[in-house]
C-alpha cells in the first residue's frame, strides 16, 4: 500500500519527541481516514452511479413536468443543421427544437413544461405500436444530486451543455442503471418493457451523467465531456458535479396486445438527449435553493398518473 511509506518515515523520527509523537498520531489518523476512503471508493469503483432506487422525499430534488411538444427526424446534437437526418424523436420542453437549434436560439422561447422558465430541449426516440407512432402523454424530469454526491457541491449546467444518455444502437439489454422500462412513476427500470396495469402505464426512464469535465459543452462523440459519478464522487477528469437528470417519458400503453418498437429499431435502444437552454438564473436558483440546501422542492407522485381507466379491484 502507498500508506506504508509515510508510516515508516514517521516511525524513524520518534526520538524527536512529543511533537513528533503528536505528528505520528495525526498522520496515523490520516492514514486510517485515507484507507477508509480508498476502501469506499474501491468498492464503488465497480459501477458508475445511475438510477436511484429510493422513495421520493429521501433525496433532494426539483422536478419539472412537461407535455409532449412535437416529433421529427431531427437531432440537433448528432446531426446539427441537418433536418431529417436522424430517426424519429419525440420532443419535450422547448417547442421550437429542430435540427438547427442552438441553446442561444432556444432561450426564452415557448416551452411545453409546467415550469415556464425551463426552455431546455429534451428528446427521446419515438415508440411505435404495430408500426404506428405512440403519442406520449408527456415527460417528467427529475433533477437530483448524483447518488452519494454532496448536495452542496452540485453546480448548475453551463448554458448550452449538451448530453446524451443511453445507446440508440443497442441490440441487447443496456444496464438498467441508466436506461429502462417501467410501469408508472414509481416503478423500477427493467430491460424488457413490462406489461403494465392501466393506472401505472408504460414509462421509458433514462438517467444522464452527473459529472462534467468543466470545459466543453459538447464533445466529438457527444459523451466524453460527461461522466457518471462513482461511489459518491466525480472522477478526476470530470470533476464538476452537476444535477443528475432523470427523464421519464410517459406513454398511454398498458395491458397486452401491443407490438412495440423504439426508433431506430430495437426496444433495447432506449436513449435521450438534452440541451441546456434553461433560463440561467432560474436553473442556478433551483440548484442553489433546492439541491445545495438538500431540500425536496417538489415531487411527482403516482397520484398524478394519467389514468386511462378506473383503478382495478382485487378479489
Amino acid at each position: 500500500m502507498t500508506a506504508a511509506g509515510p508510516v515508516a518515515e514517521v516511525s524513524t523520527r520518534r526520538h524527536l519527541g512529543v511533537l513528533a509523537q503528536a505528528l505520528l498520531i495525526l498522520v496515523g489518523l490520516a492514514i486510517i481516514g485515507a484507507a477508509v476512503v480508498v476502501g469506499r471508493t474501491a468498492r464503488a469503483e465497480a459501477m458508475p452511479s445511475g438510477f436511484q432506487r429510493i422513495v421520493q422525499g429521501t433525496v433532494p430534488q426539483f422536478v419539472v413536468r412537461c407535455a409532449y411538444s412535437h416529433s421529427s427526424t431531427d437531432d440537433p446534437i448528432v446531426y446539427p443543421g441537418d433536418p431529417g437526418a436522424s430517426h424519429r424523436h419525440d420532443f419535450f420542453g422547448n417547442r421550437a427544437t429542430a435540427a438547427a437549434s442552438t441553446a442561444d436560439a432556444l432561450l426564452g422561447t415557448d416551452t411545453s413544461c409546467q415550469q415556464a422558465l425551463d426552455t431546455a430541449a429534451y428528446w427521446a426516440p419515438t415508440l411505435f405500436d404495430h408500426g404506428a407512432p405512440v403519442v406520449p402523454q408527456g415527460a417528467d424530469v427529475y433533477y437530483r444530486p448524483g447518488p452519494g454526491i454532496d448536495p452542496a457541491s452540485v453546480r448548475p449546467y453551463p448554458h448550452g451543455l449538451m448530453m446524451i444518455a443511453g445507446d440508440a444502437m443497442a441490440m441487447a439489454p443496456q444496464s438498467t442503471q441508466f436506461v429502462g422500462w417501467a410501469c408508472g412513476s414509481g416503478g423500477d427500470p427493467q430491460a424488457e418493457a413490462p406489461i403494465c396495469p392501466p393506472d401505472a402505464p408504460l414509462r421509458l426512464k433514462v438517467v444522464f451523467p452527473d459529472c462534467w469535465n468543466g470545459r466543453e459543452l459538447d464533445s466529438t462523440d457527444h459523451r466524453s465531456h460527461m461522466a457518471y459519478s462513482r461511489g459518491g464522487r466525480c472522477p478526476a477528469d470530470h470533476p464538476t458535479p452537476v444535477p443528475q437528470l432523470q427523464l421519464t417519458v410517459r406513454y398511454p400503453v398498458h395491458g397486452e396486445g401491443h407490438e412495440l418498437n423504439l426508433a431506430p429499431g430495437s426496444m433495447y435502444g432506449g436513449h435521450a438527449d438534452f440541451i441546456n437552454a434553461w433560463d440561467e438564473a432560474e436553473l442556478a436558483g433551483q440548484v442553489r435553493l433546492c439541491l445545495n440546501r438538500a431540500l425536496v422542492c417538489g415531487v411527482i407522485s403516482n397520484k398524478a398518473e394519467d389514468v386511462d381507466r378506473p383503478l382495478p379491484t382485487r378479489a
Partner: protein
Amino acid sequence: MTTRSRTALVGALLAIAMIMASCSSGSSSSAPAEPGTKASGRTIAVPADQPTIQGAVDAAQPGDLILVSPGIYNEAVNITTAGLTLRGTDRNAVILDGEFKLENGVRVLGANNVTVQNMTARNYTNNAFFWTGVKGYHGSYLTSYRTGNYGIYAFDSVDGQFDHSYASGSPDAGFYIGECFPCNAAILDSISEYNGLGYSGTNAGGNLVIARSEFRFNRAGIVPNSGSYELCYPERETTLVGNLVHDNSQPETPAIDVAKLAMGNGILTAGGHNNLIIRNRVWNHERVGIGLVPFPEDGPKDVVPTGDALTMPCSEARNLPLPAKDALPGTLLWDSIGNRVEGNSVSDSGLADLAFGTLTGSEDPLGNCFSGNTFTSSAPAAIETTMACSGPSGAWTDTLDLVALIASERPPSGDYKVQPVPSPQPNMPDATTAPGQPAVDLPERIDIASIPLPARP
C-alpha cells in the same frame, strides 16, 4: 421522621424540582433563543424601503417583519431566512401574481419559523404558498387561486398551522400537508373550493387537526391517503372535526387523475390509519359522504410498515432500508385501518352516507368503527351495528361496491387558469400595527372536545 430529616428531604426534592425545571425550560429561558424564534422589532416596508418583496427578504435578518403595501407583485419569492414574518397590509390588495409564468408565489426553503400573512397569490404554475423542510410554519389570512399544483402547501415540515385562509382553483389540493409524522400541525377556520381535492395529505399525520373549515364545490372534499411512493407512510392519526363538507361533485374544476377518481365524495380516507372523523356536517355528494376505502398501489417501493416501524417518527423511519425488489408485491394494498367515525351528520349521498370498503373480501372491520352519526344510508347496511364502536355485530349486507365507487366516466380536468376569482376575504386584525410573529408554539392549543357539529349555513 425527624424535623431535620424532613427538612433534608424537602430540600432534596426542591433541588431535584429546580434541576428538572431548569432542564425543561432551558431552551426557552436560560439558553439563548434560536435565531428567528423571536421578533426582532425591525420592520422593512415594501415598496418604501425595498421596491420588491424579494429585495426585502434578502435584506432581512431573522425575526424581521416585512410589511407589504397594496400592489401587484410579479414575483416568485424565495425565503431562506428563519423567523421572518411576511405580511400584507391588505389581504385583498397585496397580490402576488405569477401571470402563469412563475412557479411559486412564496416558497420557504428550509427556513424555520417563517410566517406568511394577509396576502393573495394567484396565477402560479406550481403553488401559491409552499413550505418545505422546515420546523415551525404559519400561513394565516392567505388567499390562493388559479395555481397549477397546490394552493397552500407544507411538505416534509412539522410544527405548523394554516388558518383563516382560502384556496381555490388547483388541480391537486387547495390545502396540502404531506410527508410528516408526527406533523404537529393544524388547518383551522379555512375555506377550500373549486379544487381537484379540497384537502390532500399523503402520508401525513400525528397530531394533525383539520377543524372548523369548509370544503365545498371541489371534485372531492377531504382525501388523505397512504402510499410508499413518498416517505412517512401510512397516513394516520389525523383528526377531522367540526368541518362543513358539501357539494364536492363539481365537474368543472381542474383535476389530476386521483381527483377525478375521487370525484363525488365528501371525506375519503384512502388507506389511512387511526384517523378520528367527528362532528363534521357532510352533504350533497354523488357518491359517498364519509368513506373509509382501500388504496391499491401499483409498483410500490415498500411494504406496509408493521410493529415499531409503524410508530416510529418519520425522521427515523426514513432511514429504514427498502426491501429487495423481488420481495415487493406487484400491487400493495393499503387498507383503511382503525379509523373512528362518530357524531357526524351526513345526508344526500348518491351511493351511501357512510361507507367502508375493503379488498380483503372478508367481513372484518379492520378496527374501523361508526357510532352516533346522523345518516340515512350506509354500506355495509346498518353500519352502526355491523361496525359499531362499542363492538361490531351482525352479518354484513349491501357492502360497498368499490367498482361503482370508481367506475364511470369522469369529466375532463378544467383549466386552472380560468377558475372563479374569489370574493374579497376577511383581513387579519391589526395587520399594519401588529409586531412580527415568528411561527413558534404551533399549532395553537385546540380543545377538540369543545368543537361542536357546525350548523348548516
